């Protein structure tokens, strides 16, 4: 029964055969839970795969099932809120990211705090490597005139004297 509903949903959303096979390889309880989840969020194939990757990863990390992950309080909490579909999906991705990558999420959070604490000139953006895969930091300084650039660059240099900068590079290099 559940398998029929999965096939029907997948056909409706034009899922590829590999994705359907992967879904059907899940234990019965997980197949059902994933169906409810997919229907609730009207997931297309790419989103379904992305969520399944995260859910399987969390389950592997915690030694539990995918349906156990979907029953975790932070997940249920998002699903029970009255939000639009896209907002729910975005919030779920953030919640699942924290569960899937607890150490990465912790460092990302701390880096965000450190950047916030720096008195950077207006219009400055700081970028870290995707998934913090590397130690390089990109700083972009916006200016509209030569004088403006000199002022902001001086502000930047001053901000970069603060100890937060050392901590940023320590975190990126795995010292935390």
């Amino acid at each position, binding site marked *: 029964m559940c398998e029929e509903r999965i096939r029907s949903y997948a056909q409706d959303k034009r899922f590829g055969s590999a994705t359907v096979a*992967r879904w059907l*390889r899940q234990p019965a309880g997980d197949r059902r839970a994933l169906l409810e989840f997919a229907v609730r969020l009207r997931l297309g194939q790419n989103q379904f795969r992305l969520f399944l990757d995260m859910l*399987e*990863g*969390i*389950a*592997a*990390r*915690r*030694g539990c099932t995918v349906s156990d992950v979907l029953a975790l309080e932070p997940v249920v909490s998002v699903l029970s809120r009255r939000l639009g579909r896209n907002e729910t999906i975005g919030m779920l991705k953030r919640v699942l990211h924290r569960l*899937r*990558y*607890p*150490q*990465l999420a912790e*460092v990302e959070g701390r880096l965000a705090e450190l950047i916030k604490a720096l008195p950077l000139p207006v219009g400055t953006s700081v970028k870290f*490597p*995707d*998934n*913090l*895969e*590397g*130690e390089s930091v990109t700083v972009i300084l916006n200016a509209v005139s030569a004088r403006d650039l000199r002022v902001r660059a001086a502000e930047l240099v001053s901000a970069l004297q603060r100890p937060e900068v050392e901590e940023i590079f320590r*975190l*990126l*290099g*795995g*010292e*935390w």
Partner: protein
Amino acid sequence: MVRGFEPEEVWIERSELNSPVAKKVLSHVPPQVVHVVEDARAGEPMDFASGKRRVILTRNRGRFVEACPGGTDGSVCCNYLVFNVVTNCPLDCSYCFLQEYLANNPAIKVFTNVESGLGELGAILRAHPQRRFRVGTGELADSLALDHLTGLSRILIPFVLGFPNALLELKTKTDCIDELLAFDPHERVIVSWSLNPPEVAATDEMGAATVAARIEAARRVRLAGYRVGLHFDPLVDYDGWEVGYGRLIEAVFSQIDSRGVAWVSLGTLRLTPRLETVIRRRGIARRILGSELVPAADGKKRVWYGLRSKMYRFMIERLRAVDPTLPIYLCMESPALWRSVMCEVPSDRALGLRLASGGER
């Protein structure tokens, strides 16, 4: 456990029946499991798991000696030479790259024309008498898992010892050391073990000897006079990894004196997209897919850079606390990461030479 692995089927090409390796294998297995055929490629099973129960005795029609593929993607390389006389092994580690590499020919192949391989290896060793070589058989197979069937170590060890510029590494996750103990050990034969904490081995190293059995085997070969290599690779990130790896290092060095360790390698889990797909499809990975893996610059998924660095630093600190002179190297890592955690970026040649000196300290 893999100790004393007995294949369910042995396929052999008729033309190879009289080869020494075939005779040795056939003397060991019951005749009812043997299939004599004209072309053993017909004996290839369709799936990887079946392949691990079937041995094919055939000629190697390609090269026996290859440069280790580890140095192909911008990583610091140790100039290791791989000697392939067997491909695939009866162990079924969830993360093994052979699941991708041997997907289309998954049977365990034992090459019968070993003398051709030795000729090829000998030509390389003779051509560069000033160079020092590290040669290993543990890249496409476990070096010792089939040794009781094939007796290959009895052929290979004396051959390599005939070349003063070569050092042989036999790398394993088994405790199949009986054949080795029959030899007088030599400092140019390094017996190496890949090790993970017992909780990782239990979930993701199916068929391998228990970690305790591996350490005991290492203790015995060391006691016999061999030097030992240690490969903490792949390091797996899981909740409690620091405790797990800390205890593992303690367990190893409670049994093995560090002066008898030729080298220690460290590497973290790395998965190509295709390997990840195969692993998911086979459903044998319990723990590794929960690691904090992200796409790295070489297209493989690895534990993200900062966590990788942290894991390496942790291991290096614990290992150096045991013995500050232990020769440690990183496997398949970038110059940036070497600089960050090892405070040096050796050239491939320098690293190769350092290790080929056998960890002389």
